[in-house]
């Protein structure tokens, strides 16, 4: 008798999603899907708005990575304006994006995933949260809280708000950096280094005991997409995209924001509101790929900063060619944080960062524009069309979670097939299937985080829809 298991909602994610697992008559997993159940409407309700409002509007898509939307949106607007922004403005935006990456990764690693890593996949689910982490490893809990504050405080200093700063505008930024703020950020750097070094050391030790999970957590060959500089160093804000295959060979290079929709398509599946991005020449689903920390590190030949470069060398030793298991997103995320701290220090050490020329001005010079950046979770592309008055007539956003969508589904199926046998499952197994999705750190929220509690109910139904078994987590 066939059965369906539903995990709804999946916990410790940004937003709401659910997982269904279909079993066959022998109780073996036949299929599994990760569903995103929220509806986004930003592309539609942006229509009719002036293009210069877009960064502020689009930032509201997300409460955790609004800076990436701000930057991709501003760049799309600058494409419409045909302007090149001042060097200092570009560097200030780069720093803002890296600060966001640090705080977002700290949230993902320390708050959402470290309970599994420190306490165990089978541990008491009521203790799997930041309090549990603090009780088990207080120094790691402090490091996580401090790194998140580090990123948030830089955002607040630059943009005058922790969330949805309005500082990034088409043409640059609204105001230059004051020397007092620069000095305040530089003063925070030593503690940030100490915290990320502690986390990296702890993670490498912990990961040794998760080899079974590493083997089945979305561990499969795929394409990888990410921004890269001309010197093949990792990039978050400018540069161009590179797509590599499972052997590390370059499939497509120099993908600018304008070329993005020439090579990347979006498919639709009936079980999810999130689209499925794919590389057009290979079609869907063969052209599906992964983005985010794992992809960035697989693509980059160098980080471009000394400490992160050393860590990248260690990371690359995890596999011959690209690192395939999505479990290693955790490791890559920590290296991203280290890189972010180093790069912020480097940017602030350049006296030109205090230059007061931080904004270029222009009107509508093109009727279409695109912008791209690396959000913490991966590549983000904004594409707009305007009329001659600069009013938006069409908009399309390709977000990182959509680009990882097929990989998340493959990963959920892989883990479910491995762990669920003869229709039997435990809360620990349920948690492992969820944890596969958590490695990608998908951001399902369309605006801000969901408020309140997120109860989880996993129900096993027979073919007649009758309940056979149930696990409830309140």
């Amino acid at each position, binding site marked *: 008798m066939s059965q369906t298991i539903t995990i709804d909602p999946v916990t410790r994610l940004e937003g709401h999603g659910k997982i269904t697992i279909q079993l066959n008559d022998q109780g073996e997993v036949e299929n599994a899907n990760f569903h995103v159940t929220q509806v986004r409407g930003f592309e539609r309700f942006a229509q009719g708005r002036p293009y210069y409002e877009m960064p502020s509007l689009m930032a509201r898509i997300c409460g955790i990575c609004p800076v990436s939307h701000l930057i991709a949106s501003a760049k799309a607007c600058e494409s419409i304006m045909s302007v090149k922004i001042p060097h200092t403005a570009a560097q200030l935006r780069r720093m803002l994006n890296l600060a966001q990456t640090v705080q977002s990764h700290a949230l993902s690693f320390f*708050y959402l995933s470290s309970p599994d890593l420190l306490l165990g996949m089978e541990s008491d689910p009521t203790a799997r*949260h*930041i309090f549990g982490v603090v009780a088990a490893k207080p120094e790691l809990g402090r490091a996580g809280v401090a790194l998140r*504050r580090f990123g948030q405080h830089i955002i607040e200093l630059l943009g005058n708000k922790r969330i949805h700063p309005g500082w990034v505008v088409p043409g640059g930024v609204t105001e230059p950096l004051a020397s*007092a703020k620069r000095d305040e950020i530089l003063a925070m750097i030593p503690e940030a280094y100490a915290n990320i070094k502690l986390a990296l050391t702890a993670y490498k030790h912990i990961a040794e005991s998760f080899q079974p999970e590493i083997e089945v957590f979305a561990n499969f060959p795929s394409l990888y997409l990410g921004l890269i500089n001309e010197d093949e160093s990792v990039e978050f804000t400018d540069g161009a995209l590179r797509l590599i295959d499972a052997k590390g060979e370059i499939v497509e290079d120099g993908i600018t924001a304008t070329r993005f929709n020439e090579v990347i398509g979006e498919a639709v599946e009936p079980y999810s509101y999130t689209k499925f991005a794919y590389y057009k020449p290979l079609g869907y689903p063969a052209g599906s790929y992964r983005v985010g920390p794992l992809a960035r590190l697989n693509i980059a030949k160098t980080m471009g900063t000394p400490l992160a470069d050393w860590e990248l060398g260690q990371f690359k030793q995890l596999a011959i060619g690209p690192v395939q298991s999505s479990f290693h997103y955790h490791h890559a995320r920590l290296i991203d944080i280290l890189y972010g701290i180093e790069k912020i220090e480097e940017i602030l050490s350049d006296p030109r960062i205090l230059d007061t020329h931080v904004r270029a001005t222009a009107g509508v010079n093109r009727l279409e524009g695109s912008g791209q950046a690396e959000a913490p979770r991966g590549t983000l592309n904004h594409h707009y069309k305007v009329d001659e008055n600069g009013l938006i007539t069409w908009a399309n956003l390709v977000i990182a979670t959509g680009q990882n969508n097929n990989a998340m589904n493959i990963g959920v199926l892989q883990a479910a097939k491995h762990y669920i046998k003869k229709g039997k499952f435990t809360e620990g197994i349920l948690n492992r299937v969820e944890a596969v999705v958590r490695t990608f750190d998908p951001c399902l929220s369309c605006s*801000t*985080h969901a*408020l309140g509690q997120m109860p989880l109910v996993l129900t096993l139904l027979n073919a007649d829809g009758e309940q056979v078994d149930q696990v409830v987590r309140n």
Partner: protein
Amino acid sequence: MTQSPIRCLILACGNTLREDDGVGPWLAAWAEERFRDNPAIRSIALQQWTPELSEDIAAAGSVLFIDCAIDAAPGSVRLTSVEPGDAPAALATHHLGPAQLLSLSQELYGSIPRASLLLTIGAASINLREGFSDIVSAALPEARTLLEQAVARLLTPTPKP
């Protein structure tokens, strides 16, 4: 950049786009203006109280939490003491309550303010709208008065035994 020690941290929570849920940030903005000449008082308004605030709380002499209450009589204004509490039974990753924040401050930094109060205003409606319901609007003078009294109380040194 040197800052004065914070003797009273005002920590408000709420969403100004959700009608009465925005009363906390509104009162925090009012307090910021009211006490702007006193560097020992700092006001922070956020949509959610997150774990990172535990460091600010640990470093403050006292803390006044402000929030709307959906389980209280609409328009009712209450001031209560807060003590450190256990971790919530349900997962709390993005949002913590005052008791949990105090507990986290204690666990992470070994310190909590010598006094902590919670000011709540009963919400009549938290629909998608800016502005407040009539009953909460009418309660604002009482809330402001209680807020001032609470700050005065928190700034009063505790007599030594």
